[in-house]
């Protein structure tokens, strides 16, 4: 189980609002003035979810619809958390890990797990939702300021394997010793769910930051949404800007939770070795759904640029950017 931690202070995808944001002019007041000139209101609501900060922005002519949409967006986030957040001991996924089985799993959980098992199949296990047993081994070692004991690590790796999960519509069963994490997918899937909730309210312009990102339409000032990709080693610096940005984007990297000072060991594991993949600092994938973007970015961290590039090419409309370790 991941230890509760305070929301990550470093973010590597930075939501950016329109051209004004890029040029460093104005500020929120300038946006509002531009938006007001176009007869649009915009609303932003922020909060905490999945152990990090999240922010939902929606724009449109009817402020009441925006407020309603954002409330439903947050309700959707809470539903996803209740289904699969490992930060919550009472989530359906936490209960599944604890008991080894779960009856009547919530739809969010079956959707994510179904996608995860399919991706594991396609990547031949490079992406694997059953790496959870590796976490405590690394986290406890890191707390001691040490590396994991090789025997414990070997024992944990033996418990990893996506075929040890039986997913049915009424029941999920895990083989003994198996534990799941959907942290690689949950933020992307949450972005999908929020976006659907906003669309359901007739909102067409929105920017969603659930830890991963989604955007539709345009900024209320009329300019396209943009997404900055920060340099993992230098959080203030911008490695690239995706503009215009619409659809979904997800980044995986070695920076989120590092177990070693050089960031060689981190929270993404190669399921075959139980260690972190070497070589890449971060991967950013854009895709038509947050779930896909999030899953592919994690898979690409493990696969590396060459195999990862080939994997992403299987889905039309997806693109990937790799950043090597400095």
């Amino acid at each position, binding site marked *: 189980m991941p*230890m*509760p*931690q*305070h*929301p*990550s*202070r470093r*973010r590597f995808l*930075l*939501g*950016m*609002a329109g051209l004004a*944001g890029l040029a460093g002019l104005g500020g929120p007041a300038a946006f509002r003035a531009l938006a007001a000139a176009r007869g649009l209101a915009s609303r*932003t*609501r*922020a*909060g*905490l*979810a999945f152990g990090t*900060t*999240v*922010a939902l922005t929606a724009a449109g002519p009817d402020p009441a619809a925006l407020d309603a949409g954002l409330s439903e967006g*947050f309700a959707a986030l*809470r539903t996803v*958390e*209740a289904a699969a957040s490992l930060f*919550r001991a*009472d989530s359906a996924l936490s209960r599944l890990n604890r008991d080894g089985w779960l009856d009547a799993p919530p739809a969010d959980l079956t959707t994510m797990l179904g996608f995860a098992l399919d991706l594991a199949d396609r990547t031949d296990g490079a992406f694997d939702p059953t790496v959870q047993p590796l976490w405590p081994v690394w986290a406890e070692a*890191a*707390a*001691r*300021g*040490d590396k994991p004991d090789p025997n414990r690590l070997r024992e944990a790796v033996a418990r990893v394997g996506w075929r040890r999960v039986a997913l049915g519509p009424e029941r999920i069963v895990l083989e003994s010793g198996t534990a799941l994490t959907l942290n690689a997918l949950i933020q992307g899937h949450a972005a999908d769910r929020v976006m659907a909730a906003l669309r359901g309210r007739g909102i067409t312009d929105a920017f969603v*930051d659930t830890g991963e990102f989604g955007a539709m339409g345009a900024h209320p000032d009329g300019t396209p949404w943009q997404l*900055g990709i920060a340099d993992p080693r*230098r959080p*203030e*610096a*911008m490695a690239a800007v995706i503009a215009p940005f619409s659809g979904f984007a997800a980044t995986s990297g070695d920076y989120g939770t590092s177990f*070693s*000072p*050089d960031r060689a060991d981190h929270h993404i594991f190669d399921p075959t070795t139980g260690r972190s993949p070497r070589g890449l600092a971060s991967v950013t994938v854009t895709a038509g759904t947050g779930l896909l973007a999030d899953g592919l970015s994690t898979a690409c961290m493990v696969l590396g640029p060459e195999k990862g590039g080939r994997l992403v090419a299987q889905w039309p409309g997806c693109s990937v950017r790799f950043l090597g370790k400095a």
Partner: protein
Amino acid sequence: MTRVGRGRTASNALRSALLALLALVLAAPLAAAGSLDRAAMERHFPAPLVVGERDATLPVWPILKQEAGSYEVFAYAFESIDLAPIPGFGGTPPDLLIALAPDGTFRDVKVIAHHEPVFLEGLGSEPLFAFVEQYVGLSARQPIRVGRPNARGSGAAPQTTVDGISMATASTRVINESILAASLAVARAKLGFGAANLGLRVEARPETGDAPTVTELAARGWLRRLTVTHGRAEAAFRDAGVTVAGDGPAEAPLVELTFAYLNVPAIGRTLLGPERFAALTRELGPGDHAVLVVSHGPENPLGDEFVLGSIPDRLTVTQGGLAVNARDMAIERRGAAPGLPDGPWTILRIAGAAGFDPSAPWTLSAKIVRERGQIFPERIAREFSADYALPAALFIREAAEAGPSWTDPWRARAIELGVIALALAGLLPVLAHQRGLVADRRRFPLFRLAYLAFTLLFVGWYAQAQLSIVTLVGLVRAATVTHDLTFLLYDPPSLLLWAFVIATLVVWGRGTFCGWLCPFGALQEFFAFLAKPLRIRPRTVPPRLDRALRQVKYVLLAGILGAAALGSPLADSLSEAEPFKTAITLYFVRAWPFVAYALGLLVLNLFVYKGFCRYLCPLGASLAVLGRLRLLDWIPRRAECGSPCQLCKVRCRYGAIRPSGRVDYPECFQCMDCVTIIHDPGQCVPEVVARRRGKRIVPQPVAAE
């Protein structure tokens, strides 16, 4: 004036008093219920702060601030009553709005609602507001204690002590507990620390016999280097359009820092030498940590204008994502650490209270700052860091010191407790041994006056141990609502007295408290001495009226306890029928209606001796009810008592002896007057008569009917 007329006067006074009381009840503000909503939170945390969506599992609002396209947590805001409803002195938990920063420091503490009797109408709420403000800037990672007033000014650790408020010791401790318990609940869930590592001390093992060289230290990673090359710096500033001035090839270092954790002898002694290391160890306080940083690149992040003893603004030690307060110790470099590169250095002290764990990994970051633009130059900063970790085996971990904080008041008030305990122990034999001091017609009244003076001055005004109906209200609330009795533990002298009173209640009845240990009762007794010089004759209340008035206190008691059981704040208001808070707790420094009421009761006492005690006191009523458990009919009676002799009945100032000679124990204040009489051959009429007849008779306790 006829007797009946006088009785009416007394009852009129009482009626007026009750009307005044009713007015107070109606005027008392009702308790604020419920929690703050989003709008209220936004008022407390206005823009540019953003009130985030309320947490899904805890009643906590994240307060965010926007930072470069994303949000950061500024604080977690919550109400203490939602997380730690610790009943206050009046039995109702205080409600405090607390904002806890992600690093565990208090950003804000405000009082939303409280029912602390001492502040309501008494001291006023201002001292309480000032009290909670002291928490801002302190860290919830360490236990915080309430000291004496001005404790900080007189040398108590300012990171772990807040100044108390005299007269409000119990209330401030409950508020301290509420703040800490609620904050720890949030810290455990949100910040990854809580009771478990609160007060945790991790210290370097003193000696391991290990004496590595500087090179070996570096090889082990115990002495690390943070190097920022020109090339790396240029790249970091490129997007900002700033050039990093300074010449040299891209791979040449711009900033170069060598750093180490010094407390471990194998590191500290090797780097500083044995003498310097010993001196450093002496200078560090217990639990403090020292980190050495030597700057030997062309650019010095300490800055040329670095002030000795200050906190370097371009160097930060962080652990678990939280910045740790590290201050330069102003130790001179000259001749020290010959094995290290030359250059300016600092030894940073991390206070033991900072919650730093040297056995866990931490990070040293150095900031490089450049200016952009010429007319209004903008400062652009880039941070570079290096991690540091030592093996856990080098350290001894000590769990937080045990002992919940309710023990503090017991320790702090040990002397008061001792004095009171001695006084109580001294009272027992006097009351039990009726042929001793009690029978001494001259010395016993002096003893009694001295004892009452002690009760009023020491127990009441000094130790603030006036027992009160408020405690019973708290008990009822604990039984029905809060299920928490710990509030009793925060007021040791009162608890000691309660224990004694309950014990004597079973033996003798309510009189031991009402006649000897009630400070307001003592005050009335002294006040009654004014009657003679003022030429006020005590009025006799006609027996029927007297019997009716005696019932008022039971009605009042039932009202108060009923309201408490129903959770009604009316219980607090009705408890104001007691003048104890005004007269004893607050020394009559209070809003005038309360003072007028208390003084009115004292004046009433001149006409109807202890009228308040006999007719109104809800605490006395509760003791009278419980006093039915009394085991002994301890007042000796003779066959002649009541028939024909009426001496004791007439002399009893409390009307507790019936014409039949029977003692009305629920009304008896154990003043011992009648006991003195019965043991005095010169006073007790039957004995005087018997002696005249040449016989000697022995008084016999007569069983109560």
